């Protein structure tokens, strides 16, 4: 029995409003860290809010612990949620913030102190209990929000872009902390983000959404290496997968597989490549340019290299892609298809 399950879950918005969700079927696995990944307006937050009970579905069913919860209010769903802004109650101390769900769920009074202290120690904020939210740093706020979520021991955690308010430096350590937290409590967690790095790093599985439609659900390696369609192929990876339309198929290959011919072994597709731009990013180089002699319709392609010191701007070089790294997509449906033989003109 899945902790969270959705059946043809749909949310229709008025015209012009973003975030609609179109017939999503989903089943979480016990204790997993599931990430909803998509650009803004893809419906990932709407999906999460419907599971939380903050948004009423237009049609479809939501099940939590095997029970249909469509008609239940958020408080009756055994969920906990961490909001993008953390939504700490500004007039209450950290202690009272964490104790609020206990009070609201009418947990016996004499248990409050013990439970709050347990949650606080789990997140290492025992020393902050008397502070007000405005006296806390961004990272501390996140921990308080997590403590408030864990304190009533929910069946599932819902996290809505909790890292997006932190500055870049803090984000990495906060991410690590979240992962550690999840490993320790082992509660099924759904995490919404538009950041592919977060999704790849944290997710046991990733659900890629766009315009309210599920494009793929799989482990990070599956969605990256075997994208289900061109959207997933280009949304993940930076720079994205190179795509080229060839007669009735679209052929894609990742920039890291497009390299000088000398470093490619086995069966490969080779073409001449005119370098038009070189970016040095420290640990790697991003080289872009166009294939010579009109191959790939003269489209711009990217290459990601460990070193590009022997390349120069404006030069033309022999590059190649291993045959096995080519992905094929149907030209009309844009869905992944079996590899086929194509003519590279």
């Amino acid at each position, binding site marked *: 029995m899945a902790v969270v399950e959705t059946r043809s879950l749909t949310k229709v918005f008025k015209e012009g409003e973003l975030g609609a969700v179109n017939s999503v079927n989903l089943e979480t696995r016990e204790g997993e860290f599931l990430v909803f990944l998509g650009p803004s307006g893809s419906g990932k937050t709407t999906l999460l809010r419907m599971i939380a*009970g903050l948004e*009423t579905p237009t049609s479809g069913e939501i099940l939590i612990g095997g029970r249909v919860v469509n*008609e*239940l*209010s*958020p408080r*009756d769903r055994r969920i906990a949620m961490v909001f993008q802004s953390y939504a700490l109650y500004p007039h209450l101390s950290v202690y009272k913030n964490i104790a609020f769900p206990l009070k609201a769920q009418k947990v016996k009074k004499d248990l409050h102190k013990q439970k709050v202290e347990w949650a606080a120690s789990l997140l290492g904020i025992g020393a902050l209990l008397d502070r007000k939210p405005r006296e806390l740093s961004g990272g501390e706020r996140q921990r308080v929000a997590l403590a408030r979520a864990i304190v009533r021991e929910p069946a599932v955690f819902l996290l809505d872009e909790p890292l997006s308010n932190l500055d870049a430096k803090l984000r990495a350590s906060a991410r690590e902390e979240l992962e550690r937290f999840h490993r320790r409590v082992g509660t099924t967690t759904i995490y919404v983000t538009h950041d592919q790095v977060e999704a790849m790093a944290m997710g046991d599985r990733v659900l890629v959404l766009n315009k309210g439609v599920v494009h793929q659900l799989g482990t990070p390696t599956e969605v990256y290496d075997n994208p289900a369609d061109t959207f997933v192929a280009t949304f993940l990876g930076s720079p994205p997968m190179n795509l080229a339309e060839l007669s009735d198929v679209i052929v894609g290959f990742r920039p890291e597989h497009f390299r000088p011919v000398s470093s490619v072994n086995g069966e490969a597709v080779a073409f001449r490549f005119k370098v038009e731009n070189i970016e040095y990013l420290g640990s790697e180089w991003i080289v872009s340019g166009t294939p010579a002699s009109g191959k790939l319709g003269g489209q711009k392609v990217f290459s990601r290299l460990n070193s590009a010191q022997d390349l120069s701007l404006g030069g033309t070089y022999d590059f190649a892609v291993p045959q096995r790294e080519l992905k094929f997509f149907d030209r009309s449906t844009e869905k992944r298809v079996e590899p086929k033989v194509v003519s590279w003109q």
Partner: protein
Amino acid sequence: MRLSRRIWGKVVHVLVITVFTVLLAFPFYWMVITSFKQNVDLYTMENNPFVFNAKPTLDHLKFLFTETRFVRWLANTTFVGIVVVAITLVLAVPAAYSLARLSGRWGERLGIAIFLTYLVPQTLLFIPLSRVVAYLGLQDSLWALILVYPSFTVPFSIWLLMGFFKSIPKELEDAAMVDGLTRFGAFAKMVIPISTSGILTVVIFTFTLVTQEFVYALTFISSESNQMIGTGIPIFLVRGDVYYWGALMAACLIASLPIAFLYNLFLDRFIAGFTVGAVK
């Protein structure tokens, strides 16, 4: 979330809105009904007052516009309103700008001090001011009102405009000055034109304050032809102990609605002025 609860919530919501709307708007509804009722209808106790027992009539309106000085009072009010608006703008716009920009922290303090003077009520000042007005020979003159009304329109206008000017990015004026305007030139040619909506708010606000004022008008003005609407209607539409309720209600309605309508359009800005940064 459960269905019955949701329906209950809706019912309560509609009920609350209806009850409050009826309570708050009832006097104005009553003005409308009364304005068009014949006297025989109004002054027969057995009649159901909620319906027209006799044919609706325009007699009260005719009476109001032909037999009373109502039109004159409207004109007086408009005249005083316009002059006070002009004085208020001349005094408040530069003051607000200079307090918002030029004087830093000290300017903020002075701004709050000016705002506090808005809280000094007419009922504290009307007695000494009546003497001042008499001393200046302005008794029973609209100029007395024109002289004193800015004392409460200017403070609030400064306060409103300060908030408005602060929201204009300083870089805009810096750019204008870099491009060759003087400090005052930047104010006159850059800030004023982009502040039209703030200035319009002040115009409307000042005008409505003038029409709503009662104490000074009651104290300084005595003759019937110099009244403002706020005092003329309640005092001079009553002859001795006889009330012309039909005409009175018609007058109230005609005078209230345009003011209410204007005020309503600019409400959000007035509220921003009142909330003194207590809302973030």
